[in-house]
Each structure stands twice: as C-alpha cells, then as structure tokens.
C-alpha cells in the first residue's frame, strides 16, 4: 500500500499488532501475562498484567498462628521454599525475641545455600530454554536439583513444600544419613557447574543472543528497587549475606559475583558464579557446624509483644523480606511480604521496549521470576 503523505514522501504504511504473551505461554514462567504491541518483530509497548495466581497469602497469614504461616511461605517462591521459610522465621524470631541455637543457624544456612543452587539451576535452565536450547541444559540442571531435593527429603520429608524451619530452630535435626549424602553431592557439584560452563558460557550463539541486550544501569537498578542477581549483574555489590549478615554468614569466606554491564549475559554469568560461591559456603558450613540442640525452647503458640519487625534474607531471586506486625495475639496482625520477583518486574517494561520478540522472552527469562511469589 503506497500512500502519499503531505510532504510528498512515499512511505509504506504498516500496522502494529497487539499480542498477548501469556498467561498460557511456554516461556512466561507460570501465568504471567504481557500485553505487547509489536511493529514487525520489534516491541513498541508492553504492559505487564499480574494476578492470575493471586491467593492472598498476606491476608491468609493474618488468620493463622505464627507457626502455621510457615506453610504459607512454602508456596511463595516454590522453587526456593527454604529461603522463604528462613526469611519468615527470622522475622518472627525478631518479633518474639527468640534466639535460635547455633546448630540450627548452621543448618539453616546449609539449607538456604543448597536452595540457592537449586533455584539458580532452574533459573538458568529455563533461561536457556527460552533461548531455544531444547531443554538440554535444563535437563542437566534438573538432575542436580533433584539431588538437592533428595537431600531435603532426607531432612524434612518433602520435596517442594518443605515447612522445615521453625520459629527458634528447625523442625528436626539432620538425620544421620544426611551428612554423607551431602558430602557426596557437594564434592560432585563443582564438576557439574564446570560442565554447564563448558556447555554454555562460551557458546557463540548464546553470547550473541545475550551480550549487550537489555542493559540495566546501576543507577536505574537501585532506583527501581531491583535486588538479587539482577542488581549485582548491574555492578552493584549488594548482597545481604555480606552487607547485612544474618544467621552465621559473617563467619564464611565467600565472594559476591558482580557483573560489569548489566546486560542479559551478566545476569546469566552472575547466577552461574553464585552457584559456585554457594558450594563454597556449604562446604565451610559443613566443616564448622557444631553439635547441640537444633531448636530453642519456644512455646508452641507464641504471643509476641506488640510491635513490628522486618527481616530480610538474600533469597535466590533477591531480597526477600517479611514485615510482621504483632498485636500480642497468636496470629500476626499484618504480614507483608517483600517479594523480590514482583519488585524486580518494575523494570520489565523499560528493559524490553525496543527489543525484538525473541529478545523479549530471553530478557524476561533473565529476570528469573516465580509467579508464586509475584502474585502471592
């Protein structure tokens, strides 16, 4: 269609097309929906639409005892339930003034770091899947995740919804068959990470698809409350394990992988390296773990004094915080969840606009969000 404009220039008139990506889409990591406007292949407008998995966890928490809320936290980021448990339990302990015994803190650290490895496995695997690699890296990473889940099953009897941590400790001590299994796994894991690296890191297709794509500058990342690997990929060395150590993280020697440009490739590399550092932390924790009680003496139904507490942990996806308000009853008066996946999505629109359809899924994949946490 040739059309003559006012300035007598011949232009081809094309129409923009509006497409729903999600909620039923292979690469929206759940039931996320984006209403995207394309001009050809290029994204010109994007509106994220949330809420398909909204369950009202925060409201439900107001009607449960402090212990029962732990089961709700399992279902936030269901790929990293241990980290969620940890964050909630820390907040509740802060609120009630309960100090967990040292062994419990070490157990929690081991669990949280194993969870980080498992979660990053999934994050990277699905990210590569979005790149179109037909699930091969995903399958390898699933393999390692399964091994971690086997360990968790030994400890708490479940594979996804652990409900392992308790206010004042953990629900059960490490069973005797756990440590040998962990030793075996943690000695194998670096080899597997090397394997992923050989498979992916230098792959020219992956590099050309991710390098210099969707650059998130450090200023913008901080301003938009982005946390976790995304923030660190942008070059901000902010990790709550280092900058606000909780539990016993200040006793370990580990690095914070920090990217230089903040592009998709950096986000990929940061996660890859974080798995290594987690392995290192678990190794140190295994060597240092003391014996002793695994649970502080705390009443079954705690009545924390009137007040409020905010505790945050470095969950695999970013800063996971719980803000609890107590009115001295057995249930929290208000339980606010600072969900990293949700807040990281603030920059989604800015990052994706101007890139192509194929980049859209890759950039979105590099966010590594989890819908259970986004919609809560």
């Amino acid at each position, binding site marked *: 269609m040739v059309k003559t404009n006012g300035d007598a220039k011949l232009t081809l008139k094309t129409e923009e097309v509006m497409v729903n990506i999600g909620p039923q889409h292979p690469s929206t990591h759940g039931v996320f929906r984006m209403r995207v406007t394309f001009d050809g292949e290029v994204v010109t407008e994007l509106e994220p639409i949330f*809420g398909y998995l909204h369950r009202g966890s925060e*409201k439900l928490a107001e009607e449960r005892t402090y212990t029962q809320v732990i089961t709700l936290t399992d279902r936030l980021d269901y790929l990293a339930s241990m980290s969620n448990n940890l964050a909630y339990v820390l907040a509740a302990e802060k609120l009630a003034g309960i100090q967990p015994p040292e062994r419990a803190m070490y157990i929690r650290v081991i669990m949280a770091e194993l969870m980080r490895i498992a979660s990053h496995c999934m994050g990277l695997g699905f990210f590569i899947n979005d790149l179109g690699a037909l699930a091969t890296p995903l399958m390898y990473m699933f393999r390692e995740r399964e091994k971690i889940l086997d360990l968790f099953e030994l400890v708490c009897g479940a594979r996804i919804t652990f409900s392992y941590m308790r206010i004042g400790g953990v629900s059960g001590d490490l069973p005797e068959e756990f440590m040998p299994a962990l030793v075996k796994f943690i000695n194998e894991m670096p080899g597997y990470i090397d394997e992923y690296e050989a498979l992916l890191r230098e792959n020219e297709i992956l590099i050309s698809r991710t390098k210099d794509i969707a650059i998130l500058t450090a200023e913008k990342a901080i301003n938009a*409350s982005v946390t976790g690997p995304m923030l660190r990929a942008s070059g901000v060395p902010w990790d709550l394990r280092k900058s606000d150590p909780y539990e016993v993280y200040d006793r370990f020697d580990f690095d914070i992988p920090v990217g230089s440009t903040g592009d998709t490739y950096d986000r990929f590399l940061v996660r890859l390296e974080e798995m290594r550092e987690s392995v290192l932390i678990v190794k140190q924790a295994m060597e240092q773990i003391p014996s002793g009680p695994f649970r502080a003496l705390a009443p079954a139904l705690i009545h924390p004094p009137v007040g409020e507490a905010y505790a945050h942990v470095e969950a695999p996806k970013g800063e996971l915080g719980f803000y609890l308000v107590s009115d001295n009853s057995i249930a929290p008066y208000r339980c606010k969840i600072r969900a990293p996946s949700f807040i990281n999505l603030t920059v989604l629109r800015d990052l994706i606009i101007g890139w192509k359809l194929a980049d859209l899924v890759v950039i979105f994949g590099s966010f590594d969000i989890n819908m259970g946490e986004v919609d809560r």
Partner: protein
Amino acid sequence: MTTQLDVEKLSKQIQQQFPDAVQDAQGDYILLKSDYLADVARYCHDTPALALHFLSSVTGVDYIDYFELVYHLVSFEHNHSIVLKTRAYGREDPHVPSLTGIWQGATLQEREVYDLMGIRFTGHPYLKRIFLWDTFQGHPHRKDFTGA
C-alpha cells in the same frame, strides 16, 4: 552490617528543613505527616550524607482508625537504613502522596497497596488495580473486608 540510622538525630535534621513534618520519632522509625512525605523522601534521597537511594518496600497496614504506610529505605553507599511511616486517615478515600517520582521501585508496590488496601497515591502515573480485576469491589487487606 546494615546500621539503623539514629532516629532522633535524623528527625531533628528533618525538622530543620521541614518544621512540622515529623509527627513522632521513636523506636526505629520516623512518623511523618503525609503532606510532607514526598518532600522528606526527596530530602532523604538527595542528601549525600543520607543517600537513601534504595526503597526496599512499601507496606500498608490497616489499624482501623487509620492506615499506616511503612517505607523501608536503605543506602547502599553508607549501608544504613531507616523506616519512614506516614498515616492516611478516613476509610472512604485515604490518600498519601506517591513516591514514584523519587523511586521508580515504588510504582508496582504502590499499585499493590492501592489494590489491596485501598489507599490512593496522589501523583501516581498509572494507579490501577494490579492483582485483582478492575471491577472488583472492596480492598481485601482491609480489616473490615468481608468478601466480594
């Protein structure tokens, strides 16, 4: 270790700039009058000694008599944090100024608070329900919510 800023000192500092902004300063938070929220937030963000560039979370709490907005601010440079609070009164149309102009990270969180708690953020560019559908009646996180 992230240190808590000294609340008394900071509130005096703020009071020098905005004389009646601080309503209460105790424990580990500063309670501000909602009219001054945006100004104080801007001050916290821009003052180099404070440099609170990171808005960690925005929370709305329903205390029946009033709604309390809790802002957790962190400075990466100095590794310190502060909690700002403000109150919105009235159950029909509680409102506080939006902080989206200062922190982009507030956009989605304020939308969430608006959706679930029903607090209007004046000056928010796209204040729309986020989790619930547009025709939903009521705000579920209010204590008097009984069901749609």
